[in-house]
């Protein structure tokens, strides 16, 4: 606390002096910023003189009826203010305080550091991750804190989004979802299922989880799994514990008894493009060109040896072989599940077996690939609570 003197501020364009009409705060009274201390009459009108900070009025230096010139002392106060009110000894060189300006500038609690110079992207990362910009050294232009500075300081540990595709699928099957998430500021890791090309086939779900774990990045992750990939994502979520920010399940397997055997068998056995087309139709995606079917058939032929054992982990003769509901009930992170109500592979009504706290989204009319049917929704749910993604629109 320190003593200070309040001087008569300029209250009008042409004002040079004012006459005190009334004091509204008596000596010894505590006042708050914005309280009216006194009223004065200028050449134009009666004006209120508000306090610019909290304090206690020590003495009224001008009595009602007395006239006082601009910048001359009118009161002595005690306050914590570190700025603004010049002490009597320094009054001459200090300019008058513009009352209007003081009334619109929001107050900053004492001890708050000045606002750091930081690029908007640095501010966004800090906001996302809770980093304090005040502590980050800026290496940018004019010592501005850059996005890289925040990340280097450890504040940029945003979660990596990990995508796990379904049986018979491939990383390319996510289409532009990884790119979209990347544009929205996420790091994205797209994994290939064991037995589907990149990783060898394994004999159990646990082995599959163990095979995938070394590929995950350090730090927080958001796990996104489609169909059988959702089973593996659930396994990973159990293994990673608190590092998992969110589990997103797209048309997940492992929640009910049945699965469409025509699809599984068709994918494993199709030797001609019409046969493959029949199986793929069940996914509920659009028709494929002959060229694309041919390529897909070629890929399946190369990978079937690995896919077949993985498929057996999921389903035998139209019955699912795995149940993830128990695992889900012990996972702590938020769980989001998305189903298409026209799913031709799994029954969307199996969603009833999800834990009660899971958020369930139903995409009316979508098939087994809800992320292709409702890309905005899925990207939004994966990225939710990040800062708003850039707005794309048709001009």
């Amino acid at each position, binding site marked *: 606390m320190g003593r200070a003197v309040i001087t008569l501020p300029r209250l009008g364009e042409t004002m040079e002096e004012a006459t005190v009409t009334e004091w509204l705060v008596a000596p010894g009274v505590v006042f708050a910023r914005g309280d009216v201390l006194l009223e004065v009459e200028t050449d134009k009108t009666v004006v209120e003189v508000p306090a610019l900070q909290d304090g206690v009025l020590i003495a009224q230096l001008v009595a009602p009826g007395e006239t006082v010139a601009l910048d001359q002392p009118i009161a002595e106060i005690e306050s914590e203010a570190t700025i603004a009110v010049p002490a009597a000894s320094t009054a001459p060189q200090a300019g008058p305080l513009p009352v209007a300006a003081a009334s619109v500038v929001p107050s900053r609690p004492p001890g708050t550091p000045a606002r750091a110079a930081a690029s908007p992207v640095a501010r966004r990362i800090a906001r996302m991750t809770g980093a304090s910009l005040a502590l980050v050294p800026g290496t940018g232009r004019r010592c501005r804190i850059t996005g890289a500075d925040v990340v280097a300081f450890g504040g940029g540990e945003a979660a990596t989004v990990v995508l796990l595709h379904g049986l018979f699928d491939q990383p390319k099957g996510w289409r532009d979802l990884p790119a979209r998430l990347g544009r929205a500021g996420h790091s994205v890791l797209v994994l290939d299922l064991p037995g589907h090309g990149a990783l060898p086939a394994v004999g159990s779900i646990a082995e599959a989880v163990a095979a995938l774990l070394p590929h995950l990045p350090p730090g927080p992750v958001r796990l996104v799994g489609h169909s059988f990939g959702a089973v593996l994502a659930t396994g990973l979520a159990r293994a990673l514990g608190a590092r998992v920010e969110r589990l997103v399940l797209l048309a997940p397997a492992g929640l009910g008894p049945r699965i469409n055997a025509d699809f599984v068998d068709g994918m494993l056995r199709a030797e001609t493009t019409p046969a493959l087309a029949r199986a793929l139709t069940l996914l509920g995606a659009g028709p494929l060109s002959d060229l694309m079917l041919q390529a897909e058939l070629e890929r399946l032929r190369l990978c079937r040896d690995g896919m077949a054992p993985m498929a057996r982990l999921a389903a035998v003769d139209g019955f699912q072989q795995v149940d993830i509901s128990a695992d889900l009930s012990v996972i702590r992170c938020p769980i989001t599940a998305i189903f298409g109500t026209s799913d031709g592979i799994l029954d969307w009504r199996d969603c009833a077996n999800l834990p009660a706290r899971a958020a369930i989204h139903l995409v009316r009319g979508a098939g087994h690939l809800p992320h292709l049917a409702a890309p905005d929704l899925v990207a939004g749910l994966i990225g939710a609570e990040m800062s708003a993604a850039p707005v794309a629109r048709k*001009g």
Partner: protein
Amino acid sequence: MSAVETTYREAIRQALLDAMEADPDVVLIGEEVGLYGGAYGVTKGLIDLFGAHRVIDAPISEAGIVGVAVGAAMTGLRPVAELMYVDFVGLVMDQLANQAAKSRYMFGGQIGVPMVLRTQGGTGRSAAAQHSQSLEAWMLHIPGLRLVMPATVNDAYHLLRAALTQPDPVVFIEHKGLYTRKGMLDIGWPDGDWGVPVVRRSGRDLTIIAYSRMLHEALAAAEVLAGQGVEAEVIDLRCLNPLDEAPLIESVCRTGRALVVTEAALTGSVASEIAARLGEACFDWLEEPILRLGGEDIPIPVAPALERGSIPDARLIAETARWLVTREAPQWAAQ
């Protein structure tokens, strides 16, 4: 159909020729478009092919030319009015801004004005203050007008053909410095959709947005920058209205830095508008303020050196981009 090498001028002429062959309602009207063949030779020979009722030499009455085109468009023709220099647009502003642009709206959607106003602008020929301007911002400010400024040979053809299918008035601004520019024309393959900017070069460090002749300066700058380790993405706006901002926003959010280039006097320019929109849309993704680079805020001087010095070129773009990305100031910045 395979691509052939031709010039910007030839591509526009070909577009007019093909459009006129395809649709007997397409007529050209303007000063010197017939016997003279166009002040820049764009309509050369068309009067011989289509006759004086479809390639109409008009008196020096710019407002009248555009007004006649408006009436012809209202009643079923597809006129292409030619304004010899965009600098003359002051003479036609009522017909363009109050008549062509607003008729559909004022008349409750009943009467559209499907006309194209072809004109050309820009510096490079020491044509001085009244024949060298870039006045696209005047047009961009008027709701109801579409605005197109092709930079490439292929766009010159395809955007003009597309303009001639639009139900609303299109101002099609060519650049006098591009007429002799060579490039590939593929009649079966446009550079991109109507209203959608095209990424002409990919890069990760900054996004340079340009249109018309400045695109080529920006691409040349990007080449120089690449040699210095700075990867610039260069986007060609092509159409200023309609303008799908999504590709611009996507790019700037990725690179975090943007430089918008125009040949026009900078104040109140298209670059200013684009910069403002990107500042709003990309705020959280920016590492630096969005920069604008444009013509100096002066009338265009006739002296070649002064004219050149008053508008951006590849060197200025490259040095500014480098300053923006690497913080290495160019020499002129020391002054």
